[in-house]
């Protein structure tokens, strides 16, 4: 098979139209036709770009290697949903997820680094959990297991990190009627892993982590992976209900409302902001949860939807939370990787096992950005020693260390 035919086949496998490829590479649509017809050839830079876009190695486009993704796990997931159901950006993101996990596992093995990945849920049993009542009960059970009581979960990403669940965020597309909001995958070496669609709003991303956590904890004994589409699948409903209850437990909300004197129904959007801030969820998540718990009337729900929460919260004396802004995917860059992986990467750079440019390519950031990340040292920096001052304050006020 010649390069031209390979280009055409790889594009079709990846699910891109010639127009989409042309737009990504900044060439005309006829140029892509010429490449695939063999009358012209892409230059080296374009060929490398095409390999990245199609999720295949350069050798698969230019050489004699068989044209396949080379990712059995990703292929298994693609087959599971039927490739035609997932848009190209979804397929690319899913491929990137599996690629990342394979690389993480390989690098950890070479560096003798323990990922501490969760491999078996402390909760999952052989019976299936798929009703709303199951979900609420299980959310309470997990909260109790984690000693969270009825209070806020805090940072759900960090919680997953502590549990040994790897969370990666990547772009999977904005149209949630066709693409996935996230995925769960039981990687043979890394353990439980969660993928979150970075193209969603920041608040929805947090909800998705909790949603995928439900799949990890309660569906992993039967399923090696779950792709979260917007369906009426009972498993998905279970995970949605779990996520809502886990992030904002009904009983906890009821108690806060009672203690704060909000009354049986919330009629002031400032109360929604207060609850949202307390539970560290987005305004929209809080609104949806309160509606689910029938703590807001429909007309108030519709009215509260018109509020601009960041500005309103500021007027109430709350500092804006950067996570609340509509951040584009670019904002995340290195932060979309799990902290444990970043620790491993920094270690590999410091031990001169991986070079800065190779690491930059691995995580898809510029060399400058990666060099800045790698240079950050835990001690001996120019940063003001606030922690020392704070420790002195503890000592001065008689708090024993």
């Amino acid at each position, binding site marked *: 098979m010649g390069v031209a035919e390979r280009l055409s086949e790889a594009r079709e496998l990846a699910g891109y139209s010639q127009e989409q490829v042309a737009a990504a590479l*900044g060439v005309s649509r006829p140029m892509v036709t010429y490449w695939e017809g063999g009358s012209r050839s892409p230059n080296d*830079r374009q060929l490398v770009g095409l390999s990245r*876009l199609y999720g295949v190695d350069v050798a698969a486009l230019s050489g004699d290697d068989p044209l396949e993704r080379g990712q059995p796990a990703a292929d298994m997931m693609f087959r599971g949903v039927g490739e035609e159901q997932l848009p190209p950006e979804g397929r690319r993101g899913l491929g990137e997820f599996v690629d990342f996990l394979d690389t993480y596992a390989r690098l950890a093995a070479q560096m003798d680094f323990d990922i501490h990945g969760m491999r078996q849920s402390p909760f999952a049993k052989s019976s299936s959990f798929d009703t709303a009542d199951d979900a609420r009960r299980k959310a309470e059970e997990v909260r109790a297991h984690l000693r969270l009581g009825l209070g806020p979960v805090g940072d759900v990403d960090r919680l997953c990190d502590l549990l040994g669940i790897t969370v990666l965020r990547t772009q999977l597309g904005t149209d949630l009627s066709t693409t996935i909001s996230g995925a769960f995958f039981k990687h043979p070496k890394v353990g439980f892993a969660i993928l979150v669609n970075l193209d969603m709003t920041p608040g929805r991303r947090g909800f998705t982590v909790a949603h995928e956590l439900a799949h990890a904890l309660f569906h992993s004994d039967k399923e090696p992976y779950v792709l979260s589409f917007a369906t009426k699948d009972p498993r998905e409903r279970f995970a949605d209900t779990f996520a809502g209850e886990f992030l904002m437990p009904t009983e906890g909300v009821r108690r806060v409302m009672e203690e704060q004197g909000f009354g049986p129904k919330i009629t002031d959007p400032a109360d929604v902001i207060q609850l949202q801030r307390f539970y560290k969820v987005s305004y929209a998540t809080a609104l949806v949860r309160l509606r689910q718990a029938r703590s807001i009337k429909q007309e108030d729900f519709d009215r509260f939807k018109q509020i601009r929460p960041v500005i309103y919260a500021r007027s109430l004396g709350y500092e804006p939370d950067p996570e609340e802004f509509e951040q584009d995917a670019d904002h995340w860059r290195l932060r979309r990787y799990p902290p444990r992986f970043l620790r491993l990467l920094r270690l590999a750079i410091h031990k001169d096992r991986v070079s800065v*440019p190779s690491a930059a*390519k691995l995580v898809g950031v510029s060399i400058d950005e990666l060099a800045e990340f790698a240079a950050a040292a835990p001690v001996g920096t120019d940063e003001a020693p606030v922690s020392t001052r704070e420790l002195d304050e503890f000592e001065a006020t008689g708090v024993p260390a």
Partner: protein
Amino acid sequence: MPTVVDTVVLHYFLVVDRAALLLELLEAPVGVPRIVFDPDDGQADDAMVSELRRNIRYEQRIADTAVPTNGDDTTRELESARATAQTRAVRLRAMDGLVTDGAIEVIDLTEDELDLVGRLTAREPDPSLGILVALDDGEAACVAIAVARGWTLATDDGDALRVLDHLAPDHPYDRIRRLLVRGATDGLVTEAEANEIHEEMTRAGFWDRVRPFPER
């Protein structure tokens, strides 16, 4: 012997505005693979452009970031970062002129070189190459050119040098610090200037912590 120069070396000499010094230090002709710099990639997405173009866009994005105007320390820091990024973006754009003037030649890979790039950038690197993760595309292209054409490789990527050592032991190469030392030896800069240039590069993110003339 001609030299093929990679993104790291070009990037740091450009951001400290010392491209002319670099060209004096390297043996001519000086080439860059199109993956490192392509003068015609302005319309492509960020992920599809050449590496130096991506760096230019990164700096420009910081430079264009809106800064709040409440005059506090954070504002001043952001304003300073924005100004630095703007300067760097302008300096990096000098690459276009260097290519137009013919000081640096953009090189297209041969089929054999492209095959080697494929091997060096494969998801799972060949264990015999001595690297844990795939080589960056630009570095891989530079190594391929250096090995196939017998050119000197100018890089500061440890992984690229590891691969070069596996593929062609004793192949000639240059690193930034070595180039600066040569600059002082050849009288193009003083030892103090070489140290200053190196320091400015490290402020811009270059990771080498050993100065060209540590005793000074």
